[in-house]
């Protein structure tokens, strides 16, 4: 791999983590002493993706803004890696008029037409719309593709299986991605899923399935390269499952008493692990690693300042945008 590519993957992961650390801080800052999920600068459920950045960075490095991606209720890493505007993203999370949905959507319902990014709060239901985006690209004979992302828990939903079958049948330019973080909220994969690898399920629909172990950003990048090329060249869909890690709760405020894998969790953080690789290989110096974090935090700070200084939607305008 080229140094430039590896640097890019690292920068993307750091930017995503910096963003979520800032969100994490503000989310909890004004929910004390009595913790009220609906209170504060950022109200509502908050699903953060810390630990899963390798999936986003590795996949999105192969995409342009004309490629579509549908993400999940845990969407920030994918949005950032796909290149959505950080300020507009922050503004939507803070419920502001300048956000992607003018405060009507929230962090699980982000739509950015300029990068064809969207997400859905309903498990597995982001897969079918990606088929339609892919259908449109194929119909218009473009080489753009759609990427549909979901978690390992979603692979037991009908939408997952219907989508794999239909995409395979119609040879749609789709890359299906399963983020296997071991946990469907509190239920581990081995208690929800009859087989170990969802890549095998892809094979049963006649399409390639590949599983990337170890949360390896370079492993994801390589698998995605094959899958994206296949889709772009008319070869049809394929599926990549990535064994990743959910470093934080299912949602913020999740006590995670059900988890039995907490002892060495921080050792699985993919960002310091990748930094070590890059330093060892002479791609980056420790000083450069620090500088990347400083730059990321500056960009995040600017985005969050923009969000906080943006106007709050007027209650009297709650009924706007129901119809076009």
């Amino acid at each position, binding site marked *: 791999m080229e140094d430039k590519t590896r640097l890019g993957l690292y920068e993307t992961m750091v930017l995503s983590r910096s963003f979520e650390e800032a969100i994490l801080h503000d989310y909890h800052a004004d929910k004390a002493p009595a913790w009220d999920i609906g209170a504060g600068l950022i109200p509502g459920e908050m699903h953060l993706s810390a630990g899963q950045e390798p999936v986003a960075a590795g996949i999105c490095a192969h995409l342009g803004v004309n490629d*579509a991606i*549908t993400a999940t209720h845990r969407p920030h890493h994918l949005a950032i890696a796909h290149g959505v505007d950080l300020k507009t993203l922050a503004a939507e999370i803070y419920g502001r008029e300048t*956000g*992607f*949905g*003018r*405060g*009507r*959507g*929230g962090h699980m*319902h982000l*739509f950015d*037409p300029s990068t*064809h990014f*969207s997400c*859905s709060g*309903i498990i597995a*239901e982001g*897969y*079918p*719309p*990606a*088929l*339609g*985006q*892919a*259908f*449109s*690209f194929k*119909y218009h004979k473009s080489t753009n593709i*759609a990427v549909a992302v979901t978690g390992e828990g979603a692979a037991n939903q*009908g*939408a997952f299986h*219907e*989508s794999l*079958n*239909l995409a395979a*049948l119609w040879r749609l330019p789709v890359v299906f991605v399963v983020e296997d973080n071991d946990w469907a909220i509190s239920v581990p994969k081995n208690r929800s899923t009859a087989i170990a690898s969802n890549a095998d399920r892809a094979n049963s629909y006649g399409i390639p399935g590949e599983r990337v172990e170890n949360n390896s950003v370079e492993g994801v990048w390589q698998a995605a390269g094959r899958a994206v090329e296949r889709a772009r060249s008319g070869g049809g869909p394929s599926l990549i499952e990535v064994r990743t890690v959910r470093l934080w709760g299912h949602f913020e405020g999740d006590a995670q008493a059900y988890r039995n894998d907490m002892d060495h969790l921080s050792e699985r953080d993919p960002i310091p692990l990748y930094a070590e690789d890059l330093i060892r290989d002479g791609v980056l110096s420790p000083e450069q690693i620090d500088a990347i974090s400083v730059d990321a935090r500056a960009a995040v700070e600017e985005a969050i300042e923009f969000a906080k200084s943006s106007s709050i939607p007027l209650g009297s305008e709650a009924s*706007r*945008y*129901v*119809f*076009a």
Partner: protein
Amino acid sequence: MVIIKSPAPQVTTRKLTTAKAMVEGISQEMERDSSIFVMGEDVGAYGGIFSSTTGLLEKFGPSRILDTPISETAFMGLATGAAVEGMRPIVELMFVDFFGVCMDQIYNHMAKIHYESGGNVKVPVVLMTAVGGGYSDGAQHSQCLWGTFAHLPGMKVVIPSNPADAKGLMISAIRDDNPVLFMFHKGVMGLPWMAKNPRSIGPVPEEPYEVPIGKASVVRSGSDVTIVTVSLSVHHALDAAEDIAAYGIDCEVIDLRSLVPLDRAAILDSVTKTGRLLVVDEDYLSFGMSGEIAAIIAESDPRLLRAPVVRVAVPDVPIPYARSLEYAVLPTKERIVSAIKEIMG
């Protein structure tokens, strides 16, 4: 080969079934706009179980007329995704009763994305679906359910009762930038294999035209009772109005043509004139269209009424199979006539 010469068609006299009028509307729009495609179960070679797509495959080919697997969630979502990218999909849900297997894609995605995106994303899908009973298809293939969909924000709900409206409303639905649920009653389609209402064949202009969505039609003027209804029940109401005219009772019949948007002004104007309101609805009684229309009067000015509102709807029971039972719950001409008598005291 025998060539049969037929007289030149005349716009005012050419008659089509509702099914053929719908297909003509779709076909004319597809000729104009290559971003329109049709998909669903058996919409290709079969031509639609209720003839809603007959002949389209032959005309437009398999790249634009697509038979899908029996995977409603996948293809409803596919319609939404294609619409988000600027296409104008027409997707058929064979029976509205099947909504249970794909409702998330319909109401959580198709209907909400425009709002959640703050108006930045448009989802111009036409979701057409067969509704209604009367032919012993039982509880899972006979419902109307327009109240269910009208209850959920974000979709227009269009329900034609006759061929000319069906064509014009279909064209309007296709050109609309919102998701539009287009609900056609099997009993108004003019199908050769089902008892058909005589008004299911009627004059239809040949050129493309729009019937505005959200505008009710006063299909019979009268001064004593306002009958507000939609779909096949429009015809039952007209038949009842003709019968009861012999008793000197003059009914006005309003065909709503769409529930979303609802033409509240047309209802209020008529009730202001007649002072009596009868709502006829083939959907379930409670929490639905008939209650909503009664509420319009209650919220506007209950003093408009000279008699209490009367509702003829399907009592809150699944649609029964046996004909004797089914016709006991459907809104028939006889039930409407007795309701008119009741309202007139």
